Every structure is written in C-alpha cells, then in structure tokens.
C-alpha cells in the first residue's frame, strides 16, 4: 500500500475538522444538546486557567480602584456632595410623582412595575470587535439569570442576555450588529428601532420621515420589544440624515460607553409595563 504524503494527510485532516466544526456551528444555531455538551467540555477544560485569572484580575482591579480613589480631586468630592444633596431632593420629588402616577394608572386600569426586580453583576471581560460585541458578567443560571433578560447600567440600557452558564452569562451589547431594541424619542414620542453597527454609532430605523426629530434629542427604551422596560436611556441623536424611503436616517451617540461598563444590573423580570388582564383584581388606591 502506498504511503499517504504528509500534505495530503493534513488536507484530509483539515477536511474532517472543517466538516465537524461546521456541524458544531449548525448545532449551536439550532440549540442542540450536542453543541452544549462540547461547550461544557471546553469550558471545564479552561476552568484551571480562568479561576486564577479572575483572582489576579480582581486584585489588580482593587489596586487600580484604590489609586483612583486616593487621587480623586477634593473639589470633585465637594461637587459630588452638592450633586447628591440636589439629587436626594429630586428623588423625593420623583417619589411623590411616582405615587401620583401609580394612582392615576390604577384609575386608568393599568399596572406598571416601576422598579423591576434586578440583580447586580460585575463585568468579567468584554469583546468589542466589529462584528461581535459581548460582555461576560459574573452572574449566571445559579442566580436566576435567563436568556433574553435586559441588562442596564448607570445611565441606560446596555444589552440583553444571550446565553447563560451556571456561574456567568454572556450579554450582547446594544451596539452589536445583531442587537435590536425598541426606542422612542423622549421629546416628540416618535418611535423606531435601535440597531447596532459594531464600532460605529448606533442607528435608529423605521422612524417615519414626517416625525419631529432634531439633533440632541434623547432616545429612551419604549418597552415595546418585551425585553427592556420603558424609560431607560439609549442615546442622543447626533445625525438626522436625508430620509431613505419612508423612514428617517438617524444616528445615535450611546448614553452608556461600552468600554467603561464595569457593573451592571440584570432585570430579572421581563418588560415593565403590562395591561391588567380582565379577570385580574384591580388594586384600589
């Protein structure tokens, strides 16, 4: 029998590996158990590396935060204290308004979860590539995190959970090209869909061309996508271009900088607003 040349053997091996990995990708797209099993094996094999990395990163992060705190400007502290005093007054006023809002909503036969149940999480790592923008957070299935939960940070919406392991979850950021959220212009209430464009500014699409939108308008979540409760900041309009077909071409500057996200909140309940079912008892004020 003639011996197979190394080049031919390698080409054959490449063919087998390519075929097997294409099957693996197809299985993961379909959510097959086989893909999950392979992923579990790969994950288990990398744990001895990742556990020490997390400890060392944690220590490094503490050191960085310590020095940042030590060198914090004194005037900045004074400014923050004044801001905190102002905000506490504002909070009281908001609380009054919230109560009034609740009473009025009950009168209208509607119910709103003003403060959805949430869980805090820290960002373990991030990948902000052009085609895939993901963060990894240190809360997972064991903490009640499930796919499609909304993730927010100080300032606004961050993204949604796409997959969950026992101790961590992968969150696809709003700036990912495969992300989408329903948004509304806070001033004029013009609705549209927010889509990510990788490293480029996000875009708001399906906004009717006769809508009132100007540069500087704030865009918030509308709550219509069933993931984000309404009212979370998404971004500010930076460009209002010529209409394409029946819709305006709008670019947004994100309210939350993907590169600066360290801690997030995972909302454990779906979108905040729901209409009362006819048989649901209506709370009386």
């Amino acid at each position, binding site marked *: 029998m003639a011996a197979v040349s*190394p*080049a031919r*053997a*390698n080409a054959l*091996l*490449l063919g087998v*590996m*390519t075929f097997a*990995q*294409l099957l*693996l*990708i*197809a299985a*993961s*797209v379909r959510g097959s158990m086989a*893909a999950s099993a*392979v*992923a579990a094996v*790969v*994950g288990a*094999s*990398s744990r*001895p*590396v*990742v556990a*020490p*990395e*997390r400890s*060392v*990163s944690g220590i*490094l*992060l503490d050191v*960085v935060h310590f020095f940042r705190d030590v060198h914090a400007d004194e005037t900045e502290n004074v400014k923050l204290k004044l801001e905190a005093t102002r905000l506490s007054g504002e909070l009281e006023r908001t609380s009054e308004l919230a109560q009034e809002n609740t009473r009025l909503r009950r009168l209208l036969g509607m119910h709103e979860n003003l403060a959805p149940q949430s869980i805090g999480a820290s*960002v*373990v*790592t*991030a*990948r*902000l*590539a*052009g*085609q*895939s923008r*993901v*963060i*990894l957070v240190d809360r997972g299935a064991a903490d009640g995190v499930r796919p499609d939960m909304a993730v927010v940070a100080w300032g606004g919406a961050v993204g949604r959970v*796409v*997959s969950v392991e026992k101790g961590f979850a*992968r969150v*696809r950021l709003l700036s*990912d*090209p*495969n992300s989408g959220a329903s948004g509304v212009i806070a001033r004029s209430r013009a609705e549209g869909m927010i889509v*990510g*464009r*990788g*490293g*480029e500014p996000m875009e708001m699409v399906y906004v009717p061309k006769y809508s009132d939108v100007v540069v500087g308008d704030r865009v918030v979540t509308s709550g219509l996508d069933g993931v984000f409760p309404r009212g979370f900041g998404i971004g500010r309009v930076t460009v209002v271009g010529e209409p394409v077909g029946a819709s305006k071409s709008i670019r947004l500057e994100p309210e939350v900088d*993907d*590169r600066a996200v360290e801690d997030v909140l995972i909302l454990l309940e779906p979108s905040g607003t729901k209409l009362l079912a006819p048989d649901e008892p209506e709370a009386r004020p």
Partner: protein
Amino acid sequence: MIVLWAVMGIGLSLAFELVLGRFAPGATRYVTLMTLPLVAYALRTSQRSAMAVGCASGLLEDYWIEPRLFGLNGLVKTLLGWALGGVGAQFDLNNFWGRFASGASVSLVDEGLQTALRRLFGEIVAPVGVASLGIRAVAGGLLTAAVLAIVSRFGASRRTTRQKHRKA
C-alpha cells in the same frame, strides 16, 4: 513536551485575552491574543500541530466570548493554522519581518473569514472600515513579532542553561 507547551501557551493567551477584555476592552477591537499560539506553532513546528493549536484556542475563545455561533472561531483558526503552517513549511518566516507579516495577515484573514461565516449562518454583519483593518493588521503584526521574539529569547536561554548543566 510539545503538548505541554501548547497547553501552556493557549492557557496564557486565554488568560491575557480575558484580562485585556477587562482592563482595556476597546483594544479587543484590534487585537486578538488567541492567534499567537497558532502563529507560533505554524512558524516553529508542523502544519498539523498549528491546526490542532488553532482549533483548541478557537474553541476556547468561542466558549468564553462568542454569543451564538459556538465553533466559529475554532473553524477559522483551524483554517488559519493549516494555511500558515503550509506557508511556514515552505519558507523560513521565523524572523522579525516573517513574524510581522504572519501576524498581520492572520489578523486580517481572521476578521474576513469570521465576517463571511457569520453572514453564512444568517447573522447581520457591520461594514468593515479600511482604517480599522489597517490598525488591526499593524497591531497584530507588531504584537506577534514582539511576543515571538520574547518566546525565542526564552527558548534560547533555556537551551544555553541546559547545555551548561550537561557540560558541568
């Protein structure tokens, strides 16, 4: 021994990749550390080991930071290992410019193949800017050249120490 070094190289790359994502997430747009073991094995050993190392490092990358298509990076890096291993067997690329060119081309082809495969599997892909690709190529090339130079220096010093011990 070669397997042990490969495991160590892949483990270190993964650890640094996760650290980079935590402390400088913006840099992950231009730099992928998981290609380093692949290039090292393609230039220094055989095509087959480059494919195996590429496959392993790609699958690890998929597990930790790929949201949907598990196996995508594994496939891309296996193909890169095969291609660069083949070129590495024909030419001596184990010098500064060879390493730089290998790192730069691997970074570019990695991005291109990933974009094509994402599209194939029904994902929406963002337009890729020329400037971004240029930065990616230069960053990948310099990083590869620097890391492989350090690895070579380390390997050379280990060999010298071993020879001294033998003589003694």
